[in-house]
């Protein structure tokens, strides 16, 4: 990716990351490493660590919740789940995203 392409992608990802997290959690609860690896594999985050401040803020905002379960060796593992408020937020985003995306597509197609 060229430098300007990288910059554009970073800006767009920044705005949608929160909703991608909600979308992934809407399908299934996940623990931190799962989410981080998935998002990185999809190219939605540059570094896995930056996910955690976002999750902390989303949790405080009531969009996600956590559940702790003991794994092998008795170590507790924190699972993130989506809340009702989170689902509502995701629905709103989906509506806005489709509308904005359609307009952007129309403009780009008209320009090319």
């Amino acid at each position, binding site marked *: 990716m060229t430098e300007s392409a990288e910059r554009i992608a970073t800006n767009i990802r920044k705005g949608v990351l929160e909703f991608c997290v909600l979308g992934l959690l809407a399908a299934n609860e996940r*623990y*931190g*490493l799962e989410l*981080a690896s998935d998002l*990185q594999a999809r190219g939605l985050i*540059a*570094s*896995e*660590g*930056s996910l*955690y*401040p*976002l*999750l*902390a*803020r989303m*949790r*405080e*905002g*009531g*969009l996600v919740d956590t559940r702790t379960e003991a*794994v*092998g060796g008795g*170590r*507790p*593992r*924190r699972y993130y789940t989506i809340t009702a*408020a989170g689902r509502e*937020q995701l629905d709103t985003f989906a509506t806005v995203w489709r509308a904005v995306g359609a307009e952007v597509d129309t403009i780009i197609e008209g320009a090319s």
Partner: protein
Amino acid sequence: MTTEDDYLRSVERMLRGIGPEHRSAVLEDLRGHFADAEDAGRPVDEIVRSLGTPREIADRAVEEFGADAVAGDDKAELAWRVLQGAGVVVALVVGVVVAFILPSHTIATSDGGMSVLHHLTVFQNDGLWVALIALVPALVALVPMVAPRRARTATASVAAVVLTLMALVGGFTLGGFFLPAVMLAWAAMIVWVRLRGSGFGGPARITGGALTVAPTLLLLAGIGTGGAFDISAWAWPLLAVIVVLGVLIGLGIRSAGWLLAALGLVILVGGLASGELLTLLVIWLGGWWLTIGLAHAVTASVPSHPART
């Protein structure tokens, strides 16, 4: 010292600016991330590489919590002002009562062969200047409130120490009346330092709850062992309410702090108004609950927070 510890320590250091509860949430998640990735067989240096630098995490945290980090500082400021302000007011009221209202001196005069006891206040007995000394603690407590903010930790500590010494030097009778103000000054200092540092967690809340209940347990123990305290029947419902409030404080319920503070204030004022030296214990208890209740109320986190979009 492992790479993982180094990494976490470095993140922790860089996250100093954000609120303690957010910082510990991020650190807990990172610890889990390391543990899960190690279980999955990923080598540590690769885990560290894909996490990104501590600086990247800190930058993201400031983006997410920038506004909250500032709010945390405002919270410390407000919490400190409430506690220190309460200390000033309590010291002032106690000073006025001790100097001008409380008949702490008893002198006997002879009136036609009959011995008559006169009860005099400090003001009547020793004059205005001695009486005014009783107002000095309020001034001492006021100094950190007008001193520059950057010198606050120092001025608040000095004020708390000076108040403590004054209460001790003042002797068991009159100095003891200032103990509630001393407790408030120390609570203010601790809250100021902790809210801008590591904050208060579950252990601090449980300690607050335990300290709330402690006087009741001591009274019960005193009765159980045939101690000297005789509690009026009306006091039992009050003590029961305070035990319930102590439990709620341990659970982190904010309003329980306000209620306890209000009860403490009523007990404190009641003790002062009764105007007898024997009520010193009542005043101490009132000050104790006022201090713990206020400290809990101003430090407990607000439960719900509207989602940011």
